[in-house]
């Protein structure tokens, strides 16, 4: 098979000094599914951004069908049939599917009427079994459905090269399997499909060749038949092998830290996001909530934290009814919060590390004046205890890397002795080492007696650290599933209605 697209000696260094791509040379062939494997932060996304014209490399060449090309905008790549589907499908929430797809078609220089777009979408949806409704408003779609809209778009644009960045992140196990089928089918039509993933199993299942990246460099490319799990693991991590944090024995204690009783919560568009959820978190226990994004986890998390009021149902903290209590009252009872977005929700952007420690304590500590000295000391303690890499506690938090932000956040929330820890996707976007550290800190908090509630899309992670798991699907909670977990049963619950 011949090379459709070739990246030659690509170098990318980000303004903050991170060398995301160091001399990467990679060939993408027509009619194959090429796996791009590596842990978070290995440079996979950077590479496909370069290939799709979203990012100009500092150095290096892109060869398309034997000719060197320069992409000034994504549009240039789009016109050649090179299309990137980002990790989290980003569609315009207020548009219909057909309008959204039509917009891309127009910008790709293949403008057509709305009726034509709808007709073609229906055709493709039927042919590939994508189940896409052209007239649906985007905000009504689940992440999986949005992912399928993106696939439809790629097919409709007749892509020569489809770059799929971690397309399985927001998919249920069932949806993952059908995605693999769609990818294989696309390859069989002569297209080149680049499948980015950090999961070795998926790569082995779907790909003809697997390219492995580590720390911005291409470590090697292995053919389907020759690749073994151990070899790929070594290539991904080098001599470092991630060990999952071990669960101490013990498990659920007596006292219930958190209890939800038949909670109904509305989402942003007035529809029900959480439908009658009941659950409990016990002392010394890690409780996982699995499920694909967009099934009501965010709303449920906000209800637990106190940012959203349930329309019906009760929330009990340490046995006390806090359904109508604001976060302030819940924090007084010992609630720690690790939200999904570090900057803007967990931390205040543009402010110093000290400020970010102080603002979360000030109202609880009381007093009229702020004792900046003591907060500075506290900040220094947290920074050194959590091994946060920062020059000074007076530096703005924005200057920290994602991993260091999460360490700082965890330090602030856990070091004061929490009784309930509510965390949402706490390891998302972190490299394996930091993710492991974060997970073990959460487990440690539980072994000190806290109840830990973790929402995550990563089922493997939850199965490692949790004592019990609930599965969230279309606003309902299924379970609990107890240790030892039955993977198939949990996975099946994710697709339940």
């Amino acid at each position, binding site marked *: 098979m011949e090379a459709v697209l070739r990246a030659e000696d690509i170098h990318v260094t980000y303004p903050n000094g991170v060398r995301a791509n160091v001399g990467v040379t990679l060939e993408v062939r027509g009619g194959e599914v090429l796996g791009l494997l590596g842990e978070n932060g290995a440079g996979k996304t950077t590479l496909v951004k370069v290939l799709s014209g*979203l990012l100009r490399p500092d150095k290096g060449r892109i060869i398309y069908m034997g000719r060197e090309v320069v992409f000034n*905008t*994504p*549009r240039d790549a*789009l016109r050649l049939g090179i299309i990137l589907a980002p990790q989290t499908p*980003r*569609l*315009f*929430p*207020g*548009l219909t599917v057909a*309008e*959204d797809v*039509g*917009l*891309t078609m*127009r*910008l790709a220089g293949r*403008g057509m009427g*709305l009726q034509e777009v709808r007709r073609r979408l229906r055709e493709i949806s039927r042919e590939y079994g994508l189940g896409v409704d052209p007239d649906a408003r985007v905000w009504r779609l689940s992440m999986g459905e949005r992912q399928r809209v993106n696939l439809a778009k790629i097919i409709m644009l007749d892509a020569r090269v489809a770059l799929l960045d971690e397309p399985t992140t927001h998919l249920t196990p069932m949806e993952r399997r059908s995605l693999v089928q769609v990818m294989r089918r696309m390859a069989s039509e002569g297209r080149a499909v680049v499948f980015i993933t950090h999961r070795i199993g998926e790569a082995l299942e779907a790909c003809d060749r697997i390219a492995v990246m580590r720390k911005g460099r291409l470590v090697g490319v292995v053919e389907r038949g020759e690749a073994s799990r151990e070899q790929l693991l070594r290539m991904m991590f080098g001599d470092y092998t991630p060990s999952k944090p071990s669960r101490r024995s013990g498990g659920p204690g007596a006292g219930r830290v958190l209890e939800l009783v038949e909670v109904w919560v*509305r*989402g*942003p*568009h*007035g*529809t029900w996001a959480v439908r009658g959820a009941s659950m409990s978190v016990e002392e010394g226990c890690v409780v996982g909530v699995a499920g694909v994004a967009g099934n009501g986890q965010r709303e449920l998390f*906000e209800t637990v934290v106190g*940012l*959203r009021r349930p329309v019906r149902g009760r929330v009990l903290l340490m046995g006390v009814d806090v359904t109508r209590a604001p976060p302030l009252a819940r924090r007084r009872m010992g609630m720690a919060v690790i939200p999904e977005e570090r900057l803007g929700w967990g931390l205040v952007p543009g402010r110093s590390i000290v400020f970010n420690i102080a603002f979360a304590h000030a109202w609880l500590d009381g007093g009229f004046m702020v004792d900046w000295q003591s907060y500075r000391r506290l900040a220094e303690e947290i920074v050194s205890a959590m091994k946060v890499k920062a020059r000074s506690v007076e530096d703005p938090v924005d200057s920290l890397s994602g991993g260091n932000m999460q360490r700082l956040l965890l330090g602030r929330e856990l070091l004061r002795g929490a009784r309930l820890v509510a965390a949402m996707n706490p390891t998302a976007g972190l490299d394996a080492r930091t993710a492991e550290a974060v997970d073990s800190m959460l487990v440690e908090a539980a072994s000190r007696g806290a109840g830990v509630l973790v929402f995550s899309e990563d089922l493997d992670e939850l199965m490692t650290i949790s004592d019990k798991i609930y599965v969230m699907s279309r606003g309902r909670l299924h379970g609990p599933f107890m240790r030892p977990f039955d993977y198939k049963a949990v996975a099946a619950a994710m697709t339940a209605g």
Partner: protein
Amino acid sequence: MNPAAIMLTGLSEATPLLLAALGEMIVERSGRVNLGVEGMMAVGAAAAAYAGVYTGSLAASLAFGALAACLLALVYVVAVVILGLDQIVVGLILVFMGKGLADIIGSWAGGAPGTPLTPIPGLGIDLVETASLALPPILWLILYHSWLGVELRAVGEDEEEAAARGINVRLVRGLAVLVGAALAGIGGAYVADAFHYGRWFSGVTEGLGWIAIADVILGYWHPLGVLAACYLTGLLFAVKPLLPVLGVPAELVDAAPYLAVLAAQVVATVICRRLGLTPPASVWWGELTG
């Protein structure tokens, strides 16, 4: 006054509001708020009066009103769309700038009568009123049934993604601001030409720009909704002269439209919250919980 006359007066009073509000709706659909409507209307009125006095042409009067407002809006385009300054602050600055510039330009006209805009004989409404009534359906067609409208809404919903897909966000937004300004300017010109015989005086458009902004929200960012909201507020202005008959002091009557709009705004906000509605242009209400 009989009810039919009040309805007709209401339509006339609604016209400047409708023009300005539809313009602002376009801007907000592109993902920005321009609080400077009040200033753009003021400048529009002053420039229209000046042009009317010196050219004697109604068309020139309206065109100058639009042009002057566009020139003022260029400040917003440069500061907000290009440089990225805070849209609220710059919008407010535009208000003050516009009011001041209106006083300067208006003083050139010297308070002389310019080019009055009179109803078309037999129809009871004038040319601009007729045109402004045709505008909401046209805008509806553009917004929901043309790719230009889809692009505009896309920019308003998620500018980063729009840029990633190759839409020139600054261009779309800059044009939206200028079109919005032109409409506000014509709205201001209409006030001078239709209500005051083309004569200008300081504060002639006072408060209208703000009500127009409120009408955009009350009309829920939809051309036909904005039409309804503006007509209802126009009616309020039309019945104002009747209130003193009921024993309300004449000076307090001036507060009536503002009180009504404030009340409507409160009710609309509460209803939106209850229903959990997120505005189509997510520029006013951030994702605040409560």
